């Protein structure tokens, strides 16, 4: 009772709840993680309130789990050990569009739907992952290091500076945002991520799944929105060949969005009428498609697309690829619509593409290099088959990173959440697929749920150092306990 009263004093009665029904909605998500309910939900409206809640949690030794998105996929906001669910959804202001520096400063509750509809007014676009859920938080996408669709940016730098409430309740600003008076009364514009001093706090908080502090705003990069685009859909029978084209293209540093999808995922994304369009598309689309959007940029857009197209043609010639289609079969107008689609969140009224075919979807994703991607397709398919999963239903998504230096490799296993046998099978399949990928050298830089144990068991020296650092920042282990290796 005492904690509820204290929370009420901080955020107001209407923003606290211990009603079992309200708690239930936070106890499970779209993943297969075991449901666990929090004891309380608190919905703060500003940094000050967040700080007070974190201090209260320290005094009372009760866990705090922040959540920013309106939807959750990977079980990483499930309160493993109960405690206070800190729902940051009310902190949903876009604090500033900084157009000189091509950045935006957002609170945690700002969604992709919100940002991607505002950014075009400033001739900008957010650097987002593939078709994010409209309720997904922009801040946590960058915080969790989700892969961006445009491989020409240095991925390590998309989140520039942040304000965070550290686990001991201290409000701390990173990089050059630490200067007193930021943002209004200092010359600094908060664009240098390093420090303050000789550490990078941004990095320590990124990928932490809420274990190292609560981020209350972040300044993140935008990109100039191209004036016009030309989209290419290059079909392949084999993933190796698709990967080779991506290498050739990225080496020339051309294009904006660049990704590889198999027919299952491409069909799920482009289907308008379920299920007939979907079945048809799966049949007629090539097994693999490289999608490359050539953007006209800011000036002389036609000329830019012209040299990019020449470059693409040259890259394709080296591989004896005769044609560079700018359309897809039975999808008229898609070349016109796709860039806009990729620069937006998934439409709010449409069932999320990953869930559309069977109702739910389990993902396995990790980093590898493009030349190894096809090996992973074979092994993931083999593990799926061994578990009785229909391999034709697996979605694959290969996202080249940083000029093709590496790639985010993702397998999507759609399944029927209403069928207990399916759920049990997927549960196993997920674990076995992750294990097999790790054995082959797939790198899980963001290990969620059961994968975290597999990863930290292997990364011995990293785990030891990480635990020391966590102990230093969060001596009472109140921030999202039970997650990662903590």
């Amino acid at each position: 009772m005492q904690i509820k009263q204290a929370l009420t004093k901080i955020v107001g009665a209407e923003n606290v709840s211990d009603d079992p029904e309200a708690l239930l909605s936070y106890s499970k998500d779209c993943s297969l993680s075991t449901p666990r309910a929090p004891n309380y939900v608190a919905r703060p409206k500003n940094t000050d309130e967040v700080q007070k809640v974190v201090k209260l949690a320290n005094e009372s030794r009760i866990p705090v789990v922040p959540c920013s998105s309106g939807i959750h996929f990977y079980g990483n906001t499930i309160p493993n050990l109960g405690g206070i669910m800190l729902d940051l959804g009310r902190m949903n202001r876009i604090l500033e569009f900084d157009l000189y520096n091509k950045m935006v400063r957002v609170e945690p509750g700002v969604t992709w739907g919100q940002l991607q509809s505002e950014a075009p007014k400033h001739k900008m676009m957010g650097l987002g992952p593939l078709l994010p859920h409209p309720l997904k938080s922009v801040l946590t996408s960058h915080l969790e290091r989700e892969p961006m669709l445009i491989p020409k940016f240095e991925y390590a730098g998309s989140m520039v500076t942040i304000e965070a409430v550290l686990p001991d309740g201290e409000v701390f600003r990173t990089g050059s945002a630490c200067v007193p008076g930021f943002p209004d009364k200092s010359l600094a514009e908060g664009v240098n991520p390093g420090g303050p001093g000789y550490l990078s706090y941004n990095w320590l908080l990124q990928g932490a799944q809420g274990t190292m502090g609560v981020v209350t705003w972040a300044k993140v990069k935008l990109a100039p929105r191209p004036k016009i685009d030309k989209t290419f859909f290059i079909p392949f029978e084999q993933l190796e060949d698709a990967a080779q084209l991506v290498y050739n293209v990225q080496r020339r540093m051309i294009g904006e969005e660049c990704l590889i999808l198999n027919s299952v995922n491409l069909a799920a994304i482009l289907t308008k009428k379920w299920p007939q369009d979907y079945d048809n598309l799966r049949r007629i689309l090539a097994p693999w498609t490289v999608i490359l959007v050539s953007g006209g940029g800011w000036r002389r857009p036609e000329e830019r697309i012209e040299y990019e197209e020449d470059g693409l043609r040259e890259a394709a010639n080296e591989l004896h690829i005769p044609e560079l289609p700018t359309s897809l079969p039975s999808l008229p107008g898609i070349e016109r619509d796709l860039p806009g689609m990729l620069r937006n969140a998934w439409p709010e009224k449409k069932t999320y593409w990953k869930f559309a075919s069977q109702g739910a979807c389990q993902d396995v994703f990790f980093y590898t290099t493009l030349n190894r991607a096809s090996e992973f397709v074979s092994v993931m398919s083999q593990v799926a088959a061994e578990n009785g999963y229909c391999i034709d239903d697996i979605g694959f998504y290969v996202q080249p990173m940083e000029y093709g230096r590496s790639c985010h490799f993702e397998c999507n296993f759609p399944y029927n959440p209403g069928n207990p046998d399916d759920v049990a099978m997927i549960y196993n399949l997920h674990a076995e697929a992750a294990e097999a990928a790790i054995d082959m050298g797939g790198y899980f830089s963001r290990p969620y749920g059961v994968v975290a144990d597999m990863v930290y068991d292997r990364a011995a020296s990293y785990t030891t150092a990480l635990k020391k650092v966590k102990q230093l920042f969060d001596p009472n282990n109140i921030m999202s306990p039970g997650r990662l290796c903590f």
Partner: protein
Amino acid sequence: MSIPREAYQTLQSIVGPEWVSDDPAICEADRYCSLSSPSDEQRRPGCSIEPASTEEVQAIVKVANRYKIPYVCTSTFYSAGTYARKDDSILIDLKRMNEIEIDEKNLYAIVGPGVAFSALQADLLKRGLITFVPGCGGNSSVLANTVNMGDAPIGWRYGLGYQRLLGVEWVLPDGEMLKMGSLSMSDDYFWGEGPGPDLRGLLRGCAGHQSRLGIVTKIGVKIFPFVSEELEPMGWAFHSFMKLPPNRFKWYNIRFYSREDAINAMFEIGRSEIGLVVMTVPPIFRSVARTRGVGCGGFWEAWKENGPKIKPNQEDLRVLLYGIGSDKRLEYEEKVLLDIVKDFGGSPREAPCRDETNFMAADAICANVVGGRFSSEVSYESINQAVRYSRVVNEITEKYKPRILEDYGTTNWVCPYELGYIAKMECLRMSSVENRDALDKWHDDVHKFCATGGGSTIFPEDEIFGPVWGNYPEKEAKIRALFDPNHVSAPQ
């Protein structure tokens, strides 16, 4: 002998007697690095040791911990800060660890600390790839530079040092090993962060720890696509350069008579995503470059004559256009640049199509040519901040003239990176040897302003910045205590 005998014998057995020495002559030579001004702070090490492998480094560090002997490491020994600050330290010279592996397809190289930029660059250029060459020169270590700084003008296109670090193998101050990124789980350096929270955040902020937090023994470092045409070396020192293929590169010098126009042009070049290098050219840099070979006196004579002629609001931009992938791209970049220059009223002039500093061995010529003493204030923030901050620095400089030598307000350099997302501002000031204290006071004033409202500096002093910048020194001290319980890693 000042290092305990037992410890020294163990060191000998680790690397073999020929690779460790306590000969005073050898140790004295390892007292000063190339660019530091001799002072009492620099102590002659008690011994100098050259390990050949990570295992040897780890063993040396464990011995240092067992006997509580301070150690400091050097990779190629160029930095002004590389020296022992305590008597009887072990100087660990890593130059033998000079393996290079290149993954051409996936754009990264794996390097040990002894690999200099020039060695890596030579291997890369043959394959149509490049790395950076920082202003301090091609002779410095890729690893030490990337871990500690990592700044060069081609960062306009390819980012700064902290973004180039991939997998890292790190011997912590107590001798424990930490492997980061993809290397944490397999023998693969291709990806840098995690798993989970990214401990590369311990390795460096805006700059690195300068060996105060253990020794990095290997890193994966990003390399970048480049043209496949051969670059032809020409000339003789001091006037050596590489000819760039004119169908792929073009240098422009552009003069603006309004600083605002120059800055706005720079933003617009960024939004248009062209160029490999974009920067302002402080007139004094140009004068220094032109007086190579005539020595310090020659420079000052020329400067006294030319300096006053510089118009106060004049700003020159230097832009290297980059036709990567095709000649047509270079044509596109040139058209866009000339459009922008026209829109902002600049006058462009094409410069010779060659390179002295960006791909070849750069050299920090200012430091050497003008003689006397120099101090510099370096800040990484936005282009706007660079311009406003440099105005304040100019005002502070006025207070110290003539002891700080007349620069006519022209020594502030704005060098933006990442297509304009971030920019460096470097303000260089000079004095005679006798007036060195004026530089110190100037620097102090600049930093006091910087701490409370200016923004960002590369090497903050804890006393000035700590209390107003979130008490970061306390956090660092806790991290150091955690990983360096015996306080042996380059203690200050």
